[in-house]
């Protein structure tokens, strides 16, 4: 038994059940589905990234030189659509959530494995429809699809894109149903709610948002499609429709959706910080409930995207106030992560660098969110590059970094291979530097007044735009590196043991690497709290020497 745990097992989920394409495309194993998602969203990320690079190249000069306005507008729209709906929303939940949730709670699989596979197919179908729309001509409405532009004026494939998003949305909903039901009914004996890893809590909170918000965007986009196809009057001002109704419906989904795009990342960071500080997370209960609080309060603030849209003054102030309330649980998380480092035993491995990078960049993004939530300032910076910088700090600096962290942390478990550590650290630093160079100048640009979605711009903004483009190049290189060495490690990486990081949790302590198909030989009985690290994590000799030194300095004992 012990032997099997140390060496790599003869059978695991990657070789059990065959290697053929059928064994992958018809699999109901949550781990394989996670990998299917990983491959698909990586492709979407590269696609969205190429759009981003083209945007940045065009913005190198104030004039229109690389592409026409029509093309530019399609570029940022498709960049937004692909990145948000086909990369960031499914990223951590669909890849790592799928892979880890059943293992972390001690179950053999999700509650509905076939539904899980169906989710992936819906996601891919939606993706293919959206890509189809891109190929035959694209959309130019911005990812926000504001009416009446999208419903009446846009001369592009709005309906097709919208259908793609709708289908993918249902895929997301089914995944979320699976998460919630699995967390409720499939926990191993002894796995009480407060023994769950924080990754589970944050994915659970994410699933709640998905359930309550995604249908709203679904039907809203259907309404736009119906109006476009049939000429019904739903948002159309020419028939008396209110141009703001669409915005209310859209942001009722899309603000909560930004928390769909950050909560799973926060869950990952909690895992990483605990492991690499070798210490139980500080204020577990507060971090856990902060996730739920963000999920719920996140629904009350959507109007902060509409301060200057013609919404009533009163509503603007109400939404401003509520936005400040929802920021409190985020603050709680940041403080608790920082406090966890105190008296830890910190290893700066690649995943930890990503995690610490996340904390810093998310905080900066969040703090600028606070400035946007101040209605008075939003008057000036709304729809400028300040907003672009704000959300890239959170979504790229936050969530993408968390995704990279998760990838580097669980890669050995997923593939059974170790990647070259040095390269990983170089890539992490490159990404951090490139990222800041890309997006920090955009804060300044925004306050100077450069509007977003601008194909051409006045000369005086050029210097900062050049900086930003330079940064994006470095950033692109930073992303290309892991693509290289991770793929390399699949064939040539060293084989990983069951617990290469000396981490705690069922996935590390109770499964082989890679795990077997049904995860556990026997469903484990959980008798310990999460993050049960032996503290302080020094070896005994060091600890004793330290105590002697302290005693020599005349410090009082600790009892």
């Amino acid at each position: 038994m012990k032997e099997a745990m140390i060496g790599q097992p003869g059978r695991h989920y990657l070789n059990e059940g065959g290697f053929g394409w059928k064994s992958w495309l018809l699999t109901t194993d949550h781990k394989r589905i996670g990998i299917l998602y990983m491959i698909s969203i990586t492709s979407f990320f590269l696609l969205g990234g190429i759009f981003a690079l083209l945007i940045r190249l065009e913005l190198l000069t104030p004039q229109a030189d690389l592409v026409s306005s029509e093309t530019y507008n399609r570029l940022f729209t498709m960049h937004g659509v692909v990145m948000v709906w086909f990369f960031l929303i499914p990223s951590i939940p669909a890849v790592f959530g799928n892979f880890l949730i059943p293992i972390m709670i001690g179950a053999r699989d999700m509650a509905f494995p076939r539904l899980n596979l169906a989710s992936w197919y819906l996601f891919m179908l939606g993706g293919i429809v959206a890509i189809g729309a891109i190929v035959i001509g694209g959309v130019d409405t911005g990812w926000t699809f504001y009416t009446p532009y999208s419903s009446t004026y846009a001369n592009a494939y709005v309906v097709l894109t919208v259908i793609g998003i709708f289908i993918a949305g249902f895929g997301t909903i089914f995944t979320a149903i699976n998460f919630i039901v699995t967390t409720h009914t499939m926990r191993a004996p002894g796995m009480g709610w407060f023994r769950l890893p924080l990754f589970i809590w944050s994915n659970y909170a994410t699933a709640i948002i998905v359930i309550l918000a995604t249908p709203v965007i679904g039907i809203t986009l259907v309404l736009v499609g119906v109006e476009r196809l049939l000429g019904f009057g739903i948002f159309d001002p020419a028939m008396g429709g209110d141009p703001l109704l669409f915005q209310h419906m859209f942001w009722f989904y899309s603000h909560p959706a930004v928390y769909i795009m950050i909560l799973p990342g926060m869950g990952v960071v909690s895992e990483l910080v605990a492991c690499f500080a070798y210490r139980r997370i500080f204020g577990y209960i507060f971090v856990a409930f902060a996730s739920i609080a963000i999920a719920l309060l996140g629904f009350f603030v959507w109007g902060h995207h509409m301060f200057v849209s013609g919404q009533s003054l009163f509503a603007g102030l109400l939404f401003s106030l509520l936005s400040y309330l929802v920021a409190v649980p985020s603050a709680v998380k940041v403080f608790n992560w920082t406090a966890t480092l105190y008296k830890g035993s910190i290893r700066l491995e690649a995943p930890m660098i990503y995690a610490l990078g996340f904390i810093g960049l998310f905080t900066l993004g969040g703090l600028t969110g606070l400035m946007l939530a101040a209605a008075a300032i939003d008057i000036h910076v709304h729809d400028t590059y300040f907003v672009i910088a704000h959300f890239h700090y959170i979504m790229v600096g936050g969530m993408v970094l968390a995704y990279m962290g998760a990838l580097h942390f669980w890669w050995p478990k997923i593939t059974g291979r170790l990647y070259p550590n040095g390269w990983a650290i170089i890539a992490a630093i490159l990404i951090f530097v490139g990222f800041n160079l890309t997006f920090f100048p955009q804060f300044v640009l925004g306050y100077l007044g450069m509007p977003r979605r601008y194909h051409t711009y006045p000369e005086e903004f050029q210097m900062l735009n050049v900086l930003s483009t330079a940064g994006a190049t470095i950033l692109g290189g930073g992303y290309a590196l892991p693509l290289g060495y991770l793929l390399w490690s699949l064939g040539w990486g060293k084989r990983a043991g069951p617990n290469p990081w000396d981490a705690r949790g069922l996935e590390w302590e109770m499964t082989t690497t890679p795990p077997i198909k049904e995860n556990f030989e026997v469903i484990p009985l959980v008798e310990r709290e999460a993050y049960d690290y032996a503290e302080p994590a020094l070896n005994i000799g060091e600890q004793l020497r330290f105590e002697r030194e302290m005693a020599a300095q005349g410090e009082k004992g600790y009892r």
Partner: protein
Amino acid sequence: MGAHIASQKTYFTVTVALLMLLVVKVGLAYVHIGIWSLVLTLTVATAKALLVILYFMHVRWSTRLVWAVASVGVVWLLVMFALMMSDYLTRGDVHYMLNQPPVSHTVNER
């Protein structure tokens, strides 16, 4: 445990109640009592929905979890209604009123 099984009689009774409420609802449409007809009609509709949820859909006999899930959708919809209306019901042009306080207008009132 296992699922609760209600008697056929329960279902018949509930159906009769539903049909009676339906008649009440239609009747209300022809009594003109202003805003009250809206309130009452919606109350009757909600009563009907509750009957369906509690008996036909067995929530009456379900676990707390099902209760919670069944109510969360409703609560969230109410949140959406409330916050949306916080805009629409306060849309009056504050700017204008602050600028020129309305004077009573007699020319038009004959």
